[in-house]
């Protein structure tokens, strides 16, 4: 059964039609790439799924329940996490805090317990911290140790991208949405990230949806590729199938896809 179903999704901003009836499904434990030219509606789609935009029409069903009308935080609680195209960390919070915040919806202590420092609240704090460290360890030695207490903005670009993924993982999602995860990275880092995406699925059992311009990465990671243009789906299939579609070449690739 499909984990995520998008049904006939419409979204517009003052006359500009960002999504014009998108349909597709994502199955459990699958890696799906969404590609398309600039302005095709990829990021709008992510924003609609995570509740930042309210679609005009259509439905988004996750794990059998509709997400329509839910607050972003409720959608996160339901099990969808995301990263952002232009890396949006909490720049002045430390690396550890960034990851700890993301467990907000999995924990409960309110202001009252925090002021009284009840044992349950302290246990919870310890647990949050342990989980955060565990997740950061997923990225090897890059984000651990002294880096725990560094402010996020002091990280290198690539590490910021990694931290953003760690943060998304900390919400304990079933589905993770990655928005251009390799933009601005050099070839080495790009390769590493592609392997990481595989590990998200293989080791953590997550389902992944990726928006990406880098065709090398798309080809490497995707089980399936969905192509959007002008807010509608114009093609779907494996990378090779899609890359051979005339419409896709015309709208998006311009020339036969070369591995970069």
């Amino acid at each position, binding site marked *: 059964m499909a984990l995520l179903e998008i049904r006939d999704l419409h979204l517009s901003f003052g006359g500009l039609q960002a999504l014009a009836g998108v349909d597709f499904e994502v199955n459990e434990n699958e890696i799906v790439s969404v590609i398309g030219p600039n302005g095709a509606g990829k990021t709008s789609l992510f924003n609609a799924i995570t509740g*930042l935009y309210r679609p005009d029409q259509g439905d988004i069903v996750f794990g059998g329940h509709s997400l329509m009308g839910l*607050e972003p*935080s409720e959608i996160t609680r339901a099990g969808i996490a995301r990263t952002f195209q232009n890396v949006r960390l909490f720049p002045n919070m430390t690396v550890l805090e960034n990851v700890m915040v993301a467990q907000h919806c999995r924990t409960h202590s309110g202001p009252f317990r925090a002021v009284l420092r009840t044992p349950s609240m302290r246990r919870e704090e310890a647990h949050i911290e342990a989980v955060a460290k565990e997740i950061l*360890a997923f990225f090897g030695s*890059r984000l651990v140790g002294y880096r725990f207490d560094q402010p996020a903005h002091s990280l290198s670009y690539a590490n910021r991208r990694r931290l953003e993924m760690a943060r998304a993982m900390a919400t304990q999602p079933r589905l993770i949405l990655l928005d251009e995860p390799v933009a601005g990275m050099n070839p080495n880092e790009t390769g590493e990230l592609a392997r990481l995406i595989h590990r998200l699925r293989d*080791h953590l059992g997550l389902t992944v949806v990726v928006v990406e311009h880098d065709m090398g990465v798309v080809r490497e990671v995707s089980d399936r590729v969905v192509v959007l243009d002008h807010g509608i789906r114009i093609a779907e299939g494996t990378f090779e199938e899609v890359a051979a579609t005339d419409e896709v070449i015309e709208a998006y690739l311009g020339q036969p896809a070369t591995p970069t």
Partner: protein
Amino acid sequence: MTLTTREARKTLRWSVIAGLVMVFTSAVGMMESFDDRLIIYPVLSLGYLMLFWIVPLAGFQATHLPRLEGIEPPGKGLSNVLIGALTGLGAGVILAVFVVVADRFDLREVFVSISPRLVRLLTFEDTLPGGLLATVLIPTLLGTAGGAFHLLRDNLGRRLVLALEWVLVVAILEGVVAQILRQIRLDALGERIYTQRALEWFAAVALFLAILPIPASRTGTNQVERIRQRLFSIDPAQRIRNSVVSAVVILVFLILLPQLLGSLLSEVLANVGLFLIMGLGLNIVVGLAGMLDLGYVAFFAVGAYTVAVLTSSLSPRFAPELSWWLALPVALLVSALSGVMIGTPVIRMRGDYLAIVTLGFGEIIRILFLSDWLSPIFGGAQGILDIPGIPLGVTRVSGISPESILYFAFAFVLIAAWVSWSLQHSRIGRAWNALREDETVAAAMGVNTVRAKLDAFIVGAILAGGAGALFAAKLGSVFPSSFELLVSIIILVVVIVGGMGNIVGVAVGAVVLIGILGGPNVPGLMAEFAEFKLLIYGALLIFMMLRRPEGLIPARARYRELHADEADQDAWLDKSIHPIQSRPSSSETTAEPDC
């Protein structure tokens, strides 16, 4: 010796600035009105201090060059003295021109403060030509001193400034120092060093010489850091022992303090305490959760009025005459409820919308308390009188004895600080931080933004309500005029000047602004500045924001936020990030995931 164009321009600039500041100080009436107060007998009055302080500073600035990495600092020498002297001279000439104009023409039709007495003061009571010489000469000398300052060794310079500062503080705060001396039974000393509210010149010299040998450290923060490290050492047992010891020490200190300080300082500190409680509350709303609340005084008013209505025998409609102790929890509850009521409609608004709407709510609540419509309940313009104070055993604590009120202020401040600290270091505090940094992302990371904001609003409201309850008991009466917009603004200023997001910062802000300059409805230690308090307040705020926008004691995050550019540069200058040659190979990706 010639000056480069750059130096000449700088000299001109600073002499004009200094000259204009002196003219302004005179024209606005500060010089004349402060001249009544001598601070060092018989040579220096507050008026002349306010007039001339800028000149040595200008001399200093005109010769000051910022340090840059990798660039040789230019040599120092006589040119510094020359530039300083020229700066002072220029400033003096501007002042002299002003004096001549003020003397020749009658400007009082328009400028009410330019009086014949002012001219006499500016010419040192001398006849015009002779006096003018002094008008020019004194700034020249002061400017020279400022310029020559660079020739001193760093350490000596700092010590000189420190000693000078202390002498001025001891001289200006005559009332406070004298009272402390009386409290510790040193009346004789007090009477010896002060005369006519001014420090005797020999006492000033003695104090200066006494302080001079003390080595001045460049950064106080290093020492604070060291002490902190010593207190919170790694070993948990030691740490607990240290905390207990320091807690006891602080407690004993707090218990003794009011007795040492006497009534005046206790009164001032109690007012500082009230503003500090509110500052801590507003810090949660603005500093942590990032909502600009300009109507915070509303909750203060609600707390005060609740206590007034419940405890006073003269409150018009309900007069249950409860004990303050019973009224307090009710006041906190009512404040929390008003937090919900005001918070709910505004919480979804962003930034400036939130600011103006909260401002509106603050005004609405004040006007309602003032109104004839609700005066059958709240007394309207006549307020509610005869609030009995805090019953404590056989006595009642009220504003008549500020020392005992101060204990309550301490207790409330400690509670407020604890609430603030523990919330800041908890799940909800992290959520607020995230919210402030990026609301959209916080929502996407599972933070229920509406709920978190409302929590901040409510906690802030409760703290302000507590402050209000204490305020009513201290004052013995409440009037709507105590809850004007200015109060909200000043609290915000306290938070930001002190250092937003930082408890210690807010405390320092409250002490400096409310304690020294005075709050919206209360004078501070420098009660003499009353007439010009808000003028100085304004100037100080502008200066602060230009020079140190992160506040006196900034929170780390806040400092970084404001110096993001530099910090970013720092980050990439760190060679460990992104070096071409030493780039680690992708071997680390083979590390096993353990999540």
